């Protein structure tokens, strides 16, 4: 695990020669040793095509490549940081929540409509994810930002988890999600509970929830 949590808002990463790391631009707090930060035009991995794909999908965050030999401290905007270790499974996260991740992870873009069609697109709008979301796949670690502290809620068979779409951060594993609505006449007259939309996650994996309803 290349990320070490120093406190809730800072992580330390060890950079060794020959191993790349990607991080959000401007997220470096301090470093020791000889480390270089190169702005990454492609906004991540892959060639020109994946860059265009990300631009179209609006999942192109300003990323930079971190290379060299030393240790780097990452943190951004005073947001809380959660380190997520991936062992071959896929993490679904919004690109602007990515603080730093291993270069060994495979970055991709997913169309929300591919999970549940039109309802998936509606879900993307409600969670603020838009029509596309970023996927990271492989073995490695990801540092994800959230507003407020993060809790990990495990999802198992028969244990579905309902999450407020605004508090949703990321999820990994073999998880199906769908938007459940509890709209009633009260919502129509403006006296609703404010919890009309919920994200229902089922399958096996984990979902990360932030202790705030504020987006990044």
């Amino acid at each position, binding site marked *: 695990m290349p990320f070490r949590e*120093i*406190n*809730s*808002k*800072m992580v330390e990463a060890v950079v060794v020669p020959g191993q790349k790391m990607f991080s959000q*631009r*401007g997220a*470096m*707090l*301090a*470093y*020791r040793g000889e480390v*270089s*930060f*190169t*702005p990454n*035009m492609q906004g991540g991995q892959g060639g020109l095509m994946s860059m265009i794909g990300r631009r179209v999908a609006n999942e192109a965050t*300003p990323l*930079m490549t971190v290379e060299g030999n030393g240790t780097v*401290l990452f*943190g*951004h*905007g*005073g947001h809380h940081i959660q380190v997520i270790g991936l062992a071959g499974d896929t993490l679904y996260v919004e690109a602007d929540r990515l603080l730093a991740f291993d270069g060994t992870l495979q970055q991709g873009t997913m169309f929300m409509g591919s999970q549940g069609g039109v309802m998936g697109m509606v879900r993307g709008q409600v969670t603020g994810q838009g029509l596309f979301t970023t996927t990271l796949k492989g073995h490695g670690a990801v540092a994800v930002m959230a507003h407020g502290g993060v809790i990990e809620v495990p999802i198992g068979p028969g244990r579905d988890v309902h999450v407020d779409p605004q508090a949703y951060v990321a999820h990994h594993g073999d998880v199906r999600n769908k938007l459940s609505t509890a709209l009633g006449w009260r919502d129509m007259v*403006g006296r609703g509970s404010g919890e009309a939309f919920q994200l229902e996650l089922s399958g096996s994996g984990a979902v990360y929830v932030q202790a705030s309803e504020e987006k990044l």
Partner: protein
Amino acid sequence: MSAPVIFDPMTLPSDDNVNAYTFCVELKGGEWFLQKGKMIAYYGRIEFNGIGHGRFERLLRTSFHSPLHASDWVVAQGSGKMLLADRAFDVNSYDLEDGNLTIRSGNLLAYQPTLALKQSIVPGFLTLIGTGKFVAASNGPVVFMEPPIRVDPQALVGWADCPSPCHHYDHGYMTGVLGGLRSLTGLGGTSGEEHQFEFVGAGTVLLQSTEMLMAEQATGAVPHEPGVPGGGAGVPGSGHAGQGAAPRLPGQLGDLQRRFGL
């Protein structure tokens, strides 16, 4: 979850943290310097006077040497206990013993007059020299690092014991064909990490998560109404006043609307 602890003047800690975000100072007829607006509550008889008040001539001569920040600081005098806090930042106290420490001016909340406050030659930073206690805020807990280290300017809280601070510019991004193109056209953007503060020498460097602040939300702001102290249009000097209070739009129901929770 632990139950909330209720404090009274006797149980409040003396010159110690109440929790991670609040610090309690006990005054026994003495003085403390504190930055304006950082006091959130106090017990006892404490007077707050702006700097430049004639009575503090002697005090200022020994422990306040920063005309630039004179308008940001007040002297608390009297006896009692006062609570200090700042935007839910982590607050900590530090003891200096015949030492020196340089800190970002916005992060320093209060200090004992046994310390002398001077302006650092690095703009935006203040140096404390002498023996005594001071209180500082940081976004997230402070991390102490040993030089040599390079630090993002926004993440720097301060430094102690004279490591030599200097600027470090990373020109690696300008090399090569792509780098040259990038520096000429600005295409591809910058990494935001071309400039750091570099520290070498003996000492300690203090870091925080970031200096970028959370948006300040005016909780419990006084409404802008004539007759309300602090309200009304145009309150010069009070920097953040009136930021959060949205103007009433035509078509709103006014107070009735708020009463019904709409």
